[in-house]
C-alpha cells in the first residue's frame, strides 16, 4: 500500500509516494535525498538518525514516514544558514567533537533540543541528555565540551 506523504522539511514543502512501511529516515534519505541524517543501529538505540519533528528530537528510524504527514521536520541540512555554520556546529568543529563524524548529525540535532529546553546545561545534564546518542569512536569528552560551548555561544547570540 503506497501513500503520498507530505510534510515540511527544513522549511520547504516536500512529498513522496511511499510504502506504508517506509521509515521516516528512509524517506528523508532515499526519496528526498537528504543523506545528512544517518542510520547507525536501526534499532532506536544509537541516535545517528535524530531529527526534529514539530520541534522535538526523535529517532527517525523508529517512525513511519506516514506518521510525519503534515509535520514540521528539521534535519541537519537545515541547521546552517546562508553557508554559515550554526554555533553548535561551530562548537563541534572548534572542540573536535567528532572523530569519524558518523554520529555527529544526531548529536547536534539532539543537543539543539537540549539547549532549547535548558539553555545552560551542566556537564551532568548534557551527559544524561545524550543517553540516546552513541559515539562508537567513544569521543564523548569532546562532544560534551562542544555542547557546553555551543550552548554558551547560542546564549551569547540571543
Amino acid at each position, binding site marked *: 500500500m503506497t501513500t503520498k506523504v507530505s510534510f515540511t522539511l527544513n522549511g520547504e514543502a516536500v512529498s513522496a509516494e511511499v510504502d506504508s*512501511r517506509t521509515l521516516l529516515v528512509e524517506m528523508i534519505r532515499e526519496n528526498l535525498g537528504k543523506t545528512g541524517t544517518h542510520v547507525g543501529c536501526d534499532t532506536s538505540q544509537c541516535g545517528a538518525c535524530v531529527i526534529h519533528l514539530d520541534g*522535538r528530537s526523535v529517532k527517525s528510524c*523508529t*517512525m513511519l514516514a506516514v506518521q510525519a504527514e503534515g509535520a514540521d521536520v528539521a534535519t541537519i541540512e537545515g541547521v546552517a544558514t546562508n553557508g554559515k555554520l550554526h554555533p553548535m556546529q561551530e562548537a563541534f568543529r572548534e572542540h573536535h567533537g567528532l572523530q569519524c563524524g558518523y554520529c555527529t548529525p544526531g548529536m547536534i540535532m539532539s543537543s539543539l533540543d537540549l539547549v532549547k529546553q535548558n539553555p545552560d546545561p551542566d556537564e551532568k545534564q548534557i551527559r544524561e541528555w545524550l*543517553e540516546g546518542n552513541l559515539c562508537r569512536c567513544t569521543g564523548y569528552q569532546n562532544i560534551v565540551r562542544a555542547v557546553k560551548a555551543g550552548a554558551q555561544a547560542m546564549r551569547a547570540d540571543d
Partner: protein
Amino acid sequence: MYEFNYHRPTSLEDVSEILAANDEAKILAGGMTLLPTMKMRLAQPSDLVDLSAIDGLSDISDTGDAIEIGAMVRHADVAGSDIVQNAIPALAELANSIGDAQVRNRGTLGGSIANSDPASDYPAAVLGLDAVIKTNKREIAADDYFKGLFETALEANELVVSVKFPKPKKAAYAKFPNPASRYAVVGVMVAETDSGLRVAVTGAGACAYRATEIEAALGKSFSTDALAGISMDAADLNDDLHASSEYRAHLIGVMAGRAVSTLGG
C-alpha cells in the same frame, strides 16, 4: 518489516470499526516497542491504527482528587507537566527516567501500559498509585489490569483512553535501571494512598505486582528498618542476562528501602 495497511482515524468509533473488521490489526501509539518489533519481523499486523489524529487523548487534567492523563500523552509531557509535578512528583520523575530523551518524546502512557512489558516503568505507578484505567468500553482498577507477561485485562478491540491517578498522600519511585536501555531491572513504587499503603514492583516478575509482604511490614512501621528482615522469594522472578532471579529478589528490598527513605521513613 512486513507490509500492512495504515489507518489514521479521527474518532474512537472509527478505531473500533477498523479493529472489528481486521483481526490482525494493531494499535499504534508512540510506536517505541511496536515499530522495533515489526522491524525485526517479530510481529506481522495486517493493519496499523494510528491514534495520533484523535482529539482528546493527549490531555493532562487535574480533576481535584486525581489527575487524568490521556493515553497518547508522551513521557516527556508527563515529566514536564506542572500538574503532574505538583500533584504527584514521583510520577513525573518516573516518566523522566524512561529510556532516553528521544524515546520520551515519542513513547506514550497508553502504549506502555497496553504493552505491559515486564521491565517498563509505568505499570509500577499505575498499580502503586491505585490508578483507574479508562478504556473505550469501561473502567478497570489497576489491581485487575495487569495479568501476565505482555498480558492485560484489555480485550480485543479495547483500547486505553486515559489513566486516572488519585493524588497520593505521598509516593516515591526507586529504580535500578539497566545501564544501556534504562529499562527497570527492578523498580518499586511506594505510595500512601487513600486506599492504604501500596508497594508495586516492576521488572522483577512477568508483570507489575504488589509486594504484599513489604506493604504489611511498612504498615506496621514505615521505616527502612521494617524491611530488614524481609527476603523476597526468587522462585517466580525473571532470570535473564540482565540479572538473576536471586539478584532481582534482593533488589526489590533495596529499591523499596530507597523509596521509603526518600519519603522520610
